């Protein structure tokens, strides 16, 4: 059975978001001086690029090609929260974003009768995503002395609130396309945020 247009669009949206994440982290990895953060950020950037390839390959194996999309989730994100100005703010927004990604992929994994190609692709990506959350959380802990633990906590709270608004807005904007994720018989995964 051919991939439905809505699912093709969503997999393409994931692909575009992975590409945008990769490009941003790649540029940042290039800008940073050598440090443990530069090391992990470079791996993170490479993972995101790989994830974009996984989705491209997945769509190909499903007999179709990615939809060309001009906007990704991150664009709405930055519009809502503003541009981060320092490394702590970048790490905080990344942590909130990565948790959102894990939740979204978990939600997709719980769709009934999920195609095996999609299930495998999400499974491969989730292994990396767990590490992304871990290293970014550790990096933020390491910044507590310089930025202040309370300030980091406040920044995370502010970004998390913005994330909830952006996600709700995205769901509303693409309600028709995302209907298969919101079906009544579909169990919502627990909030891992």
């Amino acid at each position, binding site marked *: 059975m051919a991939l439905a247009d809505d699912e093709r669009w969503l997999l393409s949206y994931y692909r575009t978001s992975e590409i945008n994440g990769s490009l941003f982290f790649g*540029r940042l990895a290039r800008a940073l*001086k050598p440090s443990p953060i530069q090391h992990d950020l470079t791996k993170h950037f490479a993972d995101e690029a790989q994830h974009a390839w996984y989705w491209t390959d997945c769509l190909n194996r499903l007999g179709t090609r990615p939809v060309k999309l001009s906007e990704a989730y991150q664009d709405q994100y*930055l519009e809502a929260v503003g*541009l*981060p*100005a*320092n*490394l702590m*703010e*970048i790490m905080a927004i990344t942590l909130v974003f990565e948790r959102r990604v894990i939740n979204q992929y978990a939600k997709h994994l719980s769709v009934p009768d999920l195609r095996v190609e999609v299930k495998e692709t999400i499974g491969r990506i989730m292994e990396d995503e767990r590490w992304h959350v871990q290293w970014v959380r550790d990096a933020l802990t390491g910044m507590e002395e310089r930025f202040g633990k309370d300030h980091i906590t406040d920044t995370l709270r502010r970004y998390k609130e913005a994330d909830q608004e952006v996600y709700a807005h995205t769901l509303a904007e693409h309600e028709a396309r995302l209907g298969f994720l919101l079906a009544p018989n579909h169990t919502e995964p627990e909030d891992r945020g």
Partner: protein
Amino acid sequence: MTTPNQDEIIGRVADLLGVSEGRVRADVPLADLVSDSYRLVEMAIELQDDYDVIFSQADLSAVTTVGDLADLVRSRAG
């Protein structure tokens, strides 16, 4: 560390953006020099690294010109 002077910071901004120093003056809007907003973030990170200072989101959103940015670095480094 001594507080960097404005010319030095403006020279560094020109380096980071890869544009000739003649184009980068204190009164030039940053928006005329950066190709996209991500470039502004990259440059902000590099400047903070170079001068061992911290900018917040609120600091950066108040910056319009190259001179504003140089003043911000100087105020944080001082």
